[in-house]
């Protein structure tokens, strides 16, 4: 493995991991928003 091999390995893993984390975070955010929307609207309706 030449110098560049290691560089791409390191950069590849790091940015892949960060993108994956971002993806899961976005998905988690969407799920919470989906859960929160009815709660917010029902509360507004009631009081």
């Amino acid at each position, binding site marked *: *493995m*030449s*110098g*560049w091999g*290691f*560089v791409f*390995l*390191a*950069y590849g*893993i*790091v940015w892949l*991991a*960060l993108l994956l*984390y*971002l993806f899961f*975070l*976005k998905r*988690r*955010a969407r799920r*919470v*928003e989906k*859960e*929160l929307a009815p*709660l*917010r609207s*029902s*509360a507004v309706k*009631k*009081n």
Partner: protein
Amino acid sequence: MAQAAQNKTRGRKLLGASALLSVLAGLYFGLIEAPPDAYQGNAQRIMYLHIPSILTAYLSFFIVFIGSCLFLWKREKRDDILASSAAEIGVLFTALTILEGSIWGKPTWGVWWTWDARLTLTAILLLIFIGYLMLRSLIEDETRAAVCSAVLGIIGFLDIPLIHMSVYWWRTLHQPPSILRPDKMPWENIHPSMLIALAVNFVAFILLYFYLLSLRFHVGEMEEEAKTRKLYRGSL
């Protein structure tokens, strides 16, 4: 209230965009613009990744410390969410830092892992972070989990200087100081464009870190809001 939320999301999008831009710039400078190192060749380019990510590891530990202190003092759930978000991202960045360090070690020292002071310290930081997340997940009662994690956050942070001292003394005892010795910072006598690459990558990592942190914090706040709404829906 809605107006403030809009500003926040717009702010976050702006932060995200600028983080993306600076990351691309960092990649450009790091991989293309900067010349290969005379001694290590191209493998040295991993430095542009490694040094900034070490910083984010320590930065996130500092934020966990701040969040923990604020929580113990004012007992506001917001600070606890800040601490737990910073810890989660901290674990990610610390783990990546160690990964980069060992990948960089292979071409430079020929081994995947050396008990070099910097790598050992980052590994210890990762262990403390993992302990923090384990503790938080293994205590059922919410306020108790928050208080106990805050205590670990504070004690862990106070321990860092002592760990630094003991590891460095121990290090200088055994092995002649390695290339990454802290007192000879890599940017003392290096090529100006390398310096630029390092600086750009620094900015990129900071922006990326705060973007992820604000996103994770926002998710944490929403989850907390969902919980309180479900709770109060019963008695409203």
